[in-house]
């Protein structure tokens, strides 16, 4: 038991060690966007149409690749600065996968199987666009009221700048603002890491393996594993490739859902967005990935 608890502690710490650099990067980028970027001007240049906004979100993921922990604070800030919710949410969900690094790592993990790369990208892009459309509509209607915890961060930084002089405290305030954002999101990272480590150590894996061996259940089982294990999108393809007993559609389900919904991300969604939006961010990708992977299973096995 003592050995299990130590292993659990080590797994939890390793998840934080892996994710914290990206969360800090996202938090610092978020603070920089808040203070220095004229995103209102950028927001005005984003196309008005549905397809245009989805395309902007997906292209953003390709051009500004950041893993799932970093994309949440950044998307929250982009929303606050006037970027259309459809584009921001699509970006937040798609960026961890629709980027060259992760697509190449998927290609390598599956020994050059382009079909796996395409199915993964399609499942994530489709789910992100649908979630972006559904969440975006709600956020657009009640934008100001639906973004908790933003005003205090925003005004606090502004107070510092006006009181202390912009140049003198600029870097210090930026770092402090980034640290504050990191702390706000980081608590969910820590809680998610603890929960994930506990599941990993205490879950009866033989039972999971037996269920995953069942073709009809394997997609659901691997999607559940993706949520519980909190594997980073940069590495999950290699983990999925190791599940040699399951059909490829189940491996796609693992890779596609894990980048959009897992234990640590759930906490972050509830922290960053109103409850209804957070639920949509969890339910829509789950249902969408499940549907698409069932389709892949029917088409390619």
């Amino acid at each position, binding site marked *: 038991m003592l050995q299990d608890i130590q292993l659990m502690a080590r797994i939890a710490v390793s998840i934080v060690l892996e994710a914290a650099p990206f969360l800090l990067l996202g938090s*610092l980028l978020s603070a920089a966007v808040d203070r220095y970027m004229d995103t209102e001007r950028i927001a005005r240049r984003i196309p008005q149409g549905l397809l245009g906004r989805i395309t902007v979100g997906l292209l953003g993921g390709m051009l500004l690749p950041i893993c799932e922990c970093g994309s949440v604070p950044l998307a929250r800030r982009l929303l606050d600065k006037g970027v259309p919710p459809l584009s921001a949410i699509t970006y937040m969900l798609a960026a961890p996968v629709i980027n060259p690094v992760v697509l190449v790592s998927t290609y390598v993990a599956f020994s050059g199987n382009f079909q796996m790369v395409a199915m993964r990208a399609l499942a994530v892009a489709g789910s992100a666009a649908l979630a972006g459309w559904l969440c975006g509509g709600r956020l657009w209607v009640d934008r100001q009221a639906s973004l908790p915890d933003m005003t205090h961060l925003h005004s606090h930084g502004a107070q510092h700048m006006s009181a202390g002089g912009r140049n003198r405290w600029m870097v210090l305030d930026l770092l402090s603002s980034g*640290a504050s954002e990191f702390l706000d999101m980081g*608590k969910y990272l820590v809680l998610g890491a603890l929960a994930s480590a506990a599941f990993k150590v205490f879950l009866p894996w033989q039972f999971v*393996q037996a269920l995953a061996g069942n073709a009809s259940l394997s997609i659901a089982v691997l999607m559940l594993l993706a949520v519980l294990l909190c594997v980073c999108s940069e590495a999950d393809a290699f983990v999925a490739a190791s599940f*040699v007993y399951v059909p490829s559609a189940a491996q796609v389900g693992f890779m596609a859902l894990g980048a959009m919904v897992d234990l640590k991300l759930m906490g972050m969604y509830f922290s960053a967005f109103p409850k209804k939006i957070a639920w949509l961010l969890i339910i829509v990708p789950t249902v969408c990935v499940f549907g698409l992977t069932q389709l892949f299973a029917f088409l390619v096995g």
Partner: protein
Amino acid sequence: MKRVLLALDGALVLGLGLYMLILCQTEAYAAFMNPRFRPLTAAAAVGFCLAGAAFLLRPDGRSDGLRTLCFAILAVMAAHAGSGSLKGAAGFAAKPPAEIRTDPDPYLVRNGDSYLKSNPARLFLSLQTGQAAPPDQRYVTRGIIKRSAQLDRIGKFALLRGNMVCCLADAIAMGMMVSTEGFPVLRDGDWLVVFGRVQLLPEAFPITDLGGTGEVPFSMVFDKAFLVAEAIEKMERPRFPYVFELPPSARRPIRLTGGEDDY
């Protein structure tokens, strides 16, 4: 109270940075993360130190008891996680070995026969990706024993090694089934050196009742072949119980632990 909590928050972020900075310079790092990410952790550690110090000097935002508690729990976890069985507590004191990019000798000679060094995870991946050596190739591999009812019924055990891609959370104990014919009964958790050949199975034989190894909670064995053991030797737990294999590594292994993880 608010000031105390904010000061604690800043100290915890600074502490996280210092912990990462120390950890990435020690051998113990390989028990948490793939050593190839040392530079990333070091860079992030500097970022955390700066951000923590800045937050201490000019705290931003509201205090939040829950977040302070969460990071305090993380600090307790880090203290409890230790050095992950890498030479006990000494793992924190030891400097990591230099990365070796050239192979000094991929073979080990025993009784005049030459055996290709390959850890169980590398063997798994090379067979799975079709990059394995010719069928008559002899292998030497080191791993931890895992037995199960399913394996006992077919007279085999699993030889595994925890394989980390990014961090311990994604680690899977990967390996091969090994035939036990002619060898004494071996215990779960023993470390072994196995000399043998790979024999393909006529059809896949998935093993679905494997648990964890104690170092990694989840195991996987290659289901289309097994290792016919020619000799088995018991060994001490190796300096690096984990390996860091990716599918192409069968062609060009990167020796992140100074060749310790070769086999």
